[in-house]
């Protein structure tokens, strides 16, 4: 059998491609290297019952994979660190049917108009390779709308003054505000910030046959036990219902097979869960393993522009501002984050002054998420043992009394930040593991240093008695203890195979086809030319809809800007 498309990876990027292509009548085989805990692969594709609200399983036992001993990654900051500093979890996203969407808390903001043309809007920065995207916001708007309908996004229009235009309202109204975000959002507004209810891929009402969220609180880093999170169960279920889609889990793709011309792919080779090799034929190969694994697969196969594959790896540079309150905030109820604010993305006078002082043309931070803290095992492990332990656990300073701002700082693309193949370390499949070489640009550090004290002031105005800040990766801050360690923990990974029109300056073209091998398409965030200061998922999904519709010969989506 020759499949119309074989898709490598079942996260938001692969699931979206499968939804569009099966809807167009294509036969699609999805290969997922992790296990399936998401949904039955037989009609009616119901939940499997594997998801429970269990901190141990999800947070401490690699339930969603990858197990860092079976599939390690390696990390170093620069070549000066030698071959590697760390071996194990390097900003891992889940390796499971559903991928990163499985554990995400599903904040799904759109990028802004300027985010697609950062070079023309803001100009270059020394030491970074800032480029415009080969697509603009006006073209993307209907794909964003389609992505919001597909996943089911709850949000409100008109409260974020920095947002670009949209043709339609969100498919659902927002869910309830978390108590601590009400406190911090009110304080932020008083101080001139512009908080708004986060667009969230969690049902506030019944949607697409899935129930409304019942606020159980196990959202970020967990799976949804009742299917109220739409990503990625909605696109996968749609694809399976067409009868045109097959998902094979525990199948790790090792090779993209080219024909004799070297200009067309004819299928892939993979190893199953017993390490037995298989080969499948397909008219198209869609890479959707994420911005770490896709560049790694290209490098293993020596595919794509060898000067560029793996380069311009971007993580968001996260700044965490922690506020300890005298009262209990019950952040364990409801969604993990309910408010965002974009102010640090659009530099004000003070930010421009700080940029000038740092010798930079601008400072572009990222969205600030208003959220709360963690779970009891995490709290317990960071508290001292002995007689004080029980008392501190009852007071729960770092769980029930802590509010957290997370700024997803824009991470400028640098050629030296890259994925390559580790020269020595192999995974359980016998393949060289991916190695990240990553150090932030001084722009990211200046941004954190500028915004963190301002966000601490908001925390204090909201009622926090003590505030601290730190970053991932660490640069200091007011927190002596740096729980993030040396490897970034943003779980947002972008770049590594940027897209563009010029084959000498990009790996994929504007339709996300590999320059030189056009039936290899990448629908994940590897293609992002820049990182912006927004979570990547909605843009991954919108781009995947656009690329997949073009691939299947469907008409482009269009929308009209309201006057």
């Amino acid at each position, binding site marked *: 059998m020759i499949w119309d498309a074989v898709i490598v990876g079942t996260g938001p990027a692969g699931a979206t491609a499968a939804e569009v292509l099966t809807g167009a009548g294509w036969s699609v085989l999805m290969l997922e290297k992790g296990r399936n805990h998401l949904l039955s692969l037989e009609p009616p594709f119901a939940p499997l019952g594997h998801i429970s609200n269990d901190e*141990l399983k999800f947070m401490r036992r690699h339930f969603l994979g990858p197990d860092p001993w079976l599939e390690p990654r390696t990390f170093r900051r620069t070549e000066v660190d030698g071959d590697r500093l760390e071996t194990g979890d390097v900003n891992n996203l889940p390796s499971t049917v559903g991928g990163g969407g499985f554990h995400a808390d599903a904040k799904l903001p759109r990028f802004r108009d300027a985010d697609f043309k950062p070079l023309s809007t803001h100009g270059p920065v020394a030491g970074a390779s800032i480029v415009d995207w080969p697509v603009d916001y006006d073209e993307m708007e209907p794909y964003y709308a389609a992505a919001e309908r597909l996943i089911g996004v709850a949000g409100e229009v008109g409260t974020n003054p920095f947002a670009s235009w949209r043709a339609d309202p969100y498919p659902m109204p927002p869910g309830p505000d978390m108590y601590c975000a009400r406190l911090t959002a009110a304080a932020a507004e008083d101080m001139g910030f512009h908080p708004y209810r986060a667009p969230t891929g969690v049902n506030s009402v019944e949607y697409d046959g899935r129930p409304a969220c019942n606020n159980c609180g196990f959202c970020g880093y967990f799976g949804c036990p009742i299917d109220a999170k739409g990503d990625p169960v909605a696109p996968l279920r749609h694809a399976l219902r067409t009868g045109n889609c097959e998902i094979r889990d525990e199948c790790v793709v090792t090779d993209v097979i080219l024909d004799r011309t070297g200009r067309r792919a004819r299928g892939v080779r993979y190893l199953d869960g017993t390490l037995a090799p298989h080969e499948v034929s397909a008219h198209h190969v869609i890479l959707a393993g994420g911005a770490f694994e896709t560049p790694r697969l290209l490098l293993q196969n020596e595919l794509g522009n060898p000067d560029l594959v793996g380069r311009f790896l971007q993580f968001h540079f996260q700044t965490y501002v922690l506020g300890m309150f005298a009262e209990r905030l019950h952040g364990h109820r409801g969604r993990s984050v309910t408010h965002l604010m974009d102010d640090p993305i659009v530099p004000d006078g003070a930010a421009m002054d700080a940029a000038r002082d740092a010798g930079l043309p601008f400072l572009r931070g990222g969205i600030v998420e208003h959220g709360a803290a963690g779970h009891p095992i995490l709290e317990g492990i960071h508290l001292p043992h002995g007689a004080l332990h029980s008392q501190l656990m009852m007071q729960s300073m770092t769980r029930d009394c802590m509010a957290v701002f997370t700024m997803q700082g824009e991470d400028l693309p640098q050629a030296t930040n890259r994925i390559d193949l580790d020269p020595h370390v192999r995974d*359980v499949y016998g393949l060289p593991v991916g190695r990240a070489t990553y150090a932030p640009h001084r722009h990211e550090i200046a941004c954190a240093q500028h915004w963190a004290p301002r966000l601490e002031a908001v925390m204090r105005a909201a009622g926090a008695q003590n505030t601290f800040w730190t970053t991932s990766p660490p640069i200091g801050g007011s927190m002596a203890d740096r729980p993030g360690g040396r490897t970034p923990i943003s779980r947002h990974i972008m770049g590594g195979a940027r897209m563009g029109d010029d084959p000498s300056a990009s790996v994929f073209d504007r339709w996300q086809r590999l320059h030189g091998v056009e039936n290899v398409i990448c629908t994940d965030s590897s293609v992002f030319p820049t990182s912006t200061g927004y979570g990547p998922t909605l843009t991954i999904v919108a781009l995947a809809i656009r690329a997949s519709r073009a691939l299947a010969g469907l008409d482009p989506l269009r929308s009209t800007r309201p006057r």
Partner: protein
Amino acid sequence: MTLSPLEELAWRTRIEGSRGVPERERLGPIPGRQSEYRTGIAALGADFSTVDPAEQDARLDANPEFRDLLYEHVVEGAYAAPEYGGNRDLRGWYAIGFPGDVQPRGYTDAEVEGKSEAESENEAEPTADEIPADQRSVARAARPAGPRAEET
């Protein structure tokens, strides 16, 4: 739910140690939790449970690696879901006012948005044991064997 063959390889290696088996030594030799516990417990002395608390602390502090491993597992036992064998009768969660898994009841919108009604959290929160065990979550009984194995 059972472990996949590869997951079983990983957990057996962590628990039993690599023991010179080539497929377990891909990233270098691993002593294994069982061996760490045997050595660590032996070093505490056979009379550990009968000596006074200050002496117990001193002996634990003399072996910080084992102390930290033990502490991590004690915290996991105390505050993880009771199905793993610790947190019996939800006492770990009661003690700290943590409600645990509240499916399928969840929280009302008012409970999410509002200030905690009572500072006595044990009364303010719906607790997991007010919900019949078989309804708390469809999956509470279906957990991977690996974590359990590591705790034993």
